[in-house]
């Protein structure tokens, strides 16, 4: 644990070393998020409500997804690169170290640009989502559980590269889950909606946590915590099985 903490400290210091780049990237991400707010404001200004979603609910959804995804993609940045690391030999350097490989890989890199998402998500919640102590506690719980679902899913699809030898599934899984989590889940129906609660768990990254903040139900709470546990377990299991059959690419790169 001490080594993992030290690795994370080094990754944060690395990201912070170039201050101007750090702040520029943070600002760029904040600007990106503001454009999405503008889109939703314009959209709901034109159409009113859609499938029970209005501007306020979507802003809460946006706050939830930017916070949860920002934590994962900012602090555990390699979660989205597991597949690429396996295919490009990035794993080799990590295997030689006396630390557990998956936690080390996850904390090895910090992306400042996504930390801008975290700051933005918290700011959006405070400004536009009617914060009260109870809602704030649910927001923290929801964002944490959503982040666990996301990191579990990303490691899971990235680890498929152990078996397929290609990283495209991981790249596509990342793009799909982030995109689908950014839209109200109720616009979908049938098989697509079922997919968002199972194979691509976008609903558990944003919609279910956002629903919890507005209206707590035992069912949603159990489902969210259960989904987080299942995806983390699947990720750890798949990575562990995969690493046993891993053979080096004989490339020595920075993880």
């Amino acid at each position, binding site marked *: 644990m001490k080594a993992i903490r030290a690795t994370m400290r080094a990754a944060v210091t690395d990201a912070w070393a170039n201050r101007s780049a750090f702040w*520029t*990237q943070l*600002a*760029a*991400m904040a*600007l*990106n998020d503001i*454009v999405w707010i*503008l*889109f939703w404001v*314009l*959209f709901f*200004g*034109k*159409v*009113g*409500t*859609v*499938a029970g979603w209005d501007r306020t609910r979507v802003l809460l959804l946006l706050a939830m997804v930017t916070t949860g995804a920002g934590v994962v993609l900012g602090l555990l940045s390699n979660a989205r690169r597991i597949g690429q690391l396996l295919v490009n030999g990035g794993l080799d350097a990590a295997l030689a170290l006396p630390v557990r490989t998956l936690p080390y890989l996850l904390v090895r890199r910090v992306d400042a640009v996504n930390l801008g998402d975290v700051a933005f998500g918290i700011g959006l919640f405070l400004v536009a989502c009617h914060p009260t102590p109870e809602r704030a506690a649910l927001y923290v719980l929801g964002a944490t559980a959503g982040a666990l679902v996301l990191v579990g899913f990303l490691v899971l699809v990235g680890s498929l590269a152990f078996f397929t030898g*290609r990283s*495209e599934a991981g*790249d*596509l899984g990342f*793009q*799909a889950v982030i*995109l*689908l989590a950014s*839209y*109200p889940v109720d*616009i*979908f129906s049938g098989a*697509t909606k079922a997919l968002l609660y199972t194979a691509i768990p976008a609903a558990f990254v944003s919609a279910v946590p956002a629903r919890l903040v507005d209206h707590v139900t035992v069912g949603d709470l159990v489902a969210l915590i259960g989904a987080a546990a299942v995806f983390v377990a699947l990720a750890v299991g798949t990575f562990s099985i995969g690493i046993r059959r891993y053979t080096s690419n004989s490339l020595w790169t920075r993880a």
Partner: protein
Amino acid sequence: MTTARTWAPVAVRSAARRAARDPGGLAVSAAFYAIVASVLSTLWRTATHSHGGVIAGYTAVQLTWYFYFAEAAVTALNPRQIEITGDDIASGAVAVDMLRPASVVGMRIATEFGRCLPRLGVCTVIGSVLAWLISGAPPRPVALLLAVPALLLAVLCNLAAQHAVAGSAFWVRDARSAWFLYQKLVFLLGAMLIPIEALPLWLHRIAEVLPFVTMAYVPARLAAGHVEPQLLLLQLGWLAVLMVAAVTVFDAGERRLQVVGG
């Protein structure tokens, strides 16, 4: 310096062939496109149904075709092209291009256009099939035929504008953040996320006079069944302006470029 008529077709063809030989990359691009376009069209279709069947003059069927084509025009390009070109300039790698007896920016645009063609073709076919299956036949087949050259012009306009912006790296040495801002301008003012008719009037007026509409809105509007061939002329006009801008920026930048080492 040889004329563009000599090297441009060769650059386009060879880049297109190289891109077509990467089926894995094409499959990921196509799958990503299908997801993004399907999500956007579903959102707008749902909104249309709960809004009396028409939004900003578009029916659900029209909006479905609109978003599949708008997304195809944008997804065909590498979203980080500005960053990549800017990095090549900042690192001095662009100096290698200057050794060729051809325009640096012309060659880069031609190569990137060739690289986009297989992606554009795959996305357009998949988008048309999905739009047809989900919502029905295209609103007006004649307009859909016009949308095909509009897609090509949209990609060219986008590439020319991206190179004009990336050329700023000759002076500022870093165009990394610019692609982020540029992409958002295409999303909103280029009407990839929302048709310009659905924007508030003041924003609609701004979008109309900017080149971003040529990059997503024009092919999308045509695919939505509006027989408006004048939109192709608008694209050609902006393409000329944007190409001149890109060439001017690169010419000025190349004159002041200093590369140390190699």
